[in-house]
């Protein structure tokens, strides 16, 4: 058996809901996978063992946290597959391929701002837990639904209320202003921004961090079939420097990001430096 495919028992499937919002947000806990080598930012492909040929793809979900109590994911029902995923029950078998993909950078001595949009909060739970210097971490969380729908309360509790800020994203203009202001504030302190969330949110993070000269990474989402760089369905466009032919970003890149070819998000990402690719 490969070290990257596991059949794990479901321990818990906890809905996060309010009086009016039900059956949409779930915290899934599986038995501990015994990984020694995972890092926040990585994801896994999930497939209940009971699924047959009628369901084609496994579902890529960010790894939220891993400890001796279990492997935790947080997901939203957004279509057919995630609706079925939410139907698994404790004791069911889940096929987990992972940990897959790239990781968020950790610079313990630099102020680090985690930017999460909605479900994008998931990887930052593990990031906060694993960071060697949590005093340097801050979180800005943008959301459209009540906070109880997400993992925010647990996160805020762990990080401390003062370092967490949440903003309603429904007022787009004011949210983007807050976002820019927070990113700009990192420039004079050599800070790092890390973002995960919906596409339009990540585009803004890219725009603002490039504008203010702030080092930033975003975790991209893309439709994924294989999750392991084989089908080329999930690709992104690397940004190359015309003179050198190499990737424009000065940060270390996987080999495929230096080539004038579409690069698979699953294998080269999902975490990318904002100056290394074009949306």
């Amino acid at each position, binding site marked *: *058996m*490969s070290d990257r495919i596991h059949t794990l028992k479901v321990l818990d499937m906890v809905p996060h809901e309010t009086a009016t919002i039900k059956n949409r947000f779930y915290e899934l806990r599986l038995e501990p996978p015994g990984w020694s080598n995972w890092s926040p930012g990585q994801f896994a492909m999930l497939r209940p063992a009971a699924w047959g040929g009628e369901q084609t793809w496994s579902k890529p979900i960010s790894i939220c946290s891993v400890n001796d109590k279990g492997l935790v994911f947080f997901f939203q029902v957004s279509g057919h597959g995630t609706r079925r995923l939410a139907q698994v029950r404790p004791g069911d078998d889940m096929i987990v391929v992972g940990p897959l993909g790239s990781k968020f950078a950790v610079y313990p001595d630099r102020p680090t701002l985690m930017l999460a949009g909605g479900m994008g909060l998931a990887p930052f739970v593990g990031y906060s837990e694993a960071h060697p210097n949590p005093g340097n971490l801050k979180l800005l969380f943008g959301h459209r639904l009540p906070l109880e729908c997400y993992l925010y309360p647990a996160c805020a509790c762990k990080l401390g209320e003062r370092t967490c800020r949440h903003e309603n994203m429904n007022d787009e203009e004011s949210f983007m202003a807050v976002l820019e202001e927070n990113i700009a504030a990192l420039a004079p302190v050599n800070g790092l921004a890390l973002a995960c969330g919906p596409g339009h949110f990540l585009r803004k993070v890219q725009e603002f961090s490039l504008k203010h000269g702030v080092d930033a990474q975003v975790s991209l989402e893309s439709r994924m079939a294989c999750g392991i760089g084989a*089908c080329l369905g999930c690709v992104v466009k690397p940004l190359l420097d015309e003179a050198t032919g190499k990737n424009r970003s000065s940060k270390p890149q996987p080999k495929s990001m230096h080539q004038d070819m579409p690069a698979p998000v699953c294998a080269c990402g999902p975490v990318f430096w904002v100056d290394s690719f074009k949306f």
Partner: protein
Amino acid sequence: MDDNKMQMTIPLKSGDLVLKNPVLTASGTFGYGVEFSRYGDLTGLGGIVTKGLSLKPMKGNPQPRIVETAAGMLNAIGLQNWGVEGFLENYLPKLPLEQLPVIVNIYAHSPEDFSSLAARLSNVPGIAALEVNISCPNVACGGLLFGQDPKMAFEVTRAVKQASGNLPVMVKLSPNVTSITEIALACEEGGADMLSCINTLTGMAVDLKGRRPALANVVGGLSGPAIKPVALRCVWQVANAVKIPVIGIGGVYCADDILEFLLVGAYAVQVGTANFHRPNKAFELPAELEARMKKLKIENLQSFRGTLQIPDIKSWDEM
């Protein structure tokens, strides 16, 4: 595992092609093979078919390129690949060529380019056969066009055959035609050693809320269990029409699917979209197949192949 029971000997003009079992992987769904070596033992497979190669690297289509559908998916990758030289330099040497038949899938815009590709690959040691893609629905030029016109199918087959020396040539057929046997016969006449069918069925999906196509290419190729009945029908028709061996492709998901393709006349199958269920899927099929054979009392696959019995009842009144 009793090797002989599972072994398939495919008779070819240039000598037999022996597969330790009939489980091959389908082009474009198994990368260049190396991506999957971490998930199973490649040499346990009957063989692999690599991602389609062109003469020069190709970037493929814009995003989105894939969308999931009921019991399948649509893809319009557009044949992104590193080109033949990139493959020979970076991927082929990493494959266990001595224990694993590697079939190289090729694609070109013209019979001349097909011929150059075949010539380049003809003297590369370790390649078991070429698979000629005349059926890709996702590229603007050539592709499917070659597979829909018997004259073009004949010409491409002949061009590849003439340039490929002793390498066996398998031509991959499209289901997007009025008569698949007409194309099959044209390829046989052009000198094909084997045929494989089917490639994907042209299809479409839309995003209702956004009022947009789900794929940037608007249309794409449907694959997965959803297409298996079409594939079985095609394999059965083609196997009955030509004298050369046929390989079945389309929706293979479990051991019974493999047996069904063999029953209607295929010598082997290629596993495609099922590799996306989980990356160890294909590796598990030979053992699953052996268990099913035992259960169904099938002694060996070679003699089981093509034993479909069609009841001799021609009309309602004869019933």
